[in-house]
């Protein structure tokens, strides 16, 4: 029986290591298959009723943040976006996607908390969100000058994660 131990013990240890590694993963995290793919061009309206195309790159890379007035985590990341808009607005264009929200609630949210976005796409039915594989707000997409999604942050951003993600743009272009 002893020779079995030489096989069994390492096998069990390996299994244990695998399982404990699995525990460190976040079961709610779903890696996006969209990274490295072009951002879908979605036509619709912004919060002021103007016709817009979401995902269209004008002169700067895009930071597209999906938010909603009913989303608590959006509130926590909002300050980072306000600070980010001041800091990086020359390098990137901040665009909001108002996801599954009432128009008035969305507008009130921006007027009371401050509006870091150059404009916000009005995604009342959540269809744009579906196109983007959004499964919970907030989610933030980073789209480079070529219109390709290079990074995505699921959940609230922080000053640091926002800065890191924006730094990826300059790395990619050089």
């Amino acid at each position, binding site marked *: 029986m002893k020779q079995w131990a030489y096989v069994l013990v390492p096998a069990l240890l390996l299994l244990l290591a695998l399982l404990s590694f699995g525990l460190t993963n976040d*079961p*709610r995290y*779903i*890696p*996006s*298959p*969209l990274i490295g793919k072009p951002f879908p061009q979605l036509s619709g309206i912004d919060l002021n009723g103007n016709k817009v195309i979401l995902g269209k790159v004008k002169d700067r890379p895009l930071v597209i943040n999906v938010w909603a007035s009913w989303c608590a985590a959006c509130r926590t990341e909002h300050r980072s976006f306000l600070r980010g808009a001041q800091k990086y607005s020359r390098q990137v264009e901040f665009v909001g996607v108002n996801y*599954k929200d009432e128009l008035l609630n969305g507008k009130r949210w921006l007027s009371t908390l401050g509006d870091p976005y150059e404009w916000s796409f009005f995604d009342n*039915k*959540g*269809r744009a969100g*579906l*196109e*983007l*594989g959004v*499964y*919970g707000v907030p989610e933030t997409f980073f789209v480079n000058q070529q219109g390709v999604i290079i990074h995505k942050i699921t959940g609230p951003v922080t000053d640091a994660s926002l800065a890191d993600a924006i730094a990826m743009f300059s790395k990619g272009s050089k």
Partner: protein
Amino acid sequence: MSYPVLFITLLLSLLSVSSFSYADTVSEDPLERRALDIGKTLRCAVCQNQPISESNSGLAKDMMAVIKEQLQKGKSEREIEDYFVARYGDYVLMKPRQQGIGLPLWLIPPFLLIIIGSVAFIFLRSRTLKVPGRPKKLTDEEKARIKKEREKNKHDKD
């Protein structure tokens, strides 16, 4: 008629006054059935381990609506699944596909079963082959010794 009798009669008569109930006429839309079948194969991203056909979450309902819409456009089941996989990744499939990275998931279990089965078979067979032979005949000397020991044992007990 006395009051109690009247009362009971009235009460009993109430039982016969039951409202008519109809089952809702169900129009079995073949599209609906197909949409549900596709919905069963897709995982709801918010609720971890529920197909979108059973989930009440907003996202799952939206996804069901998209399925119906695409079916109306004449898209095939595979095309609709691909649509969601392209946006949400392989995660949305309740059953991983039997190709690419999903292939080992399907192949490893039967493979392990075969290995474990054959190891068990070899092990058990080697055990049955190792039947101990007939015991050796005792020599007279040994017999005498056993007898002596037994006697000794008896005396000790007394």
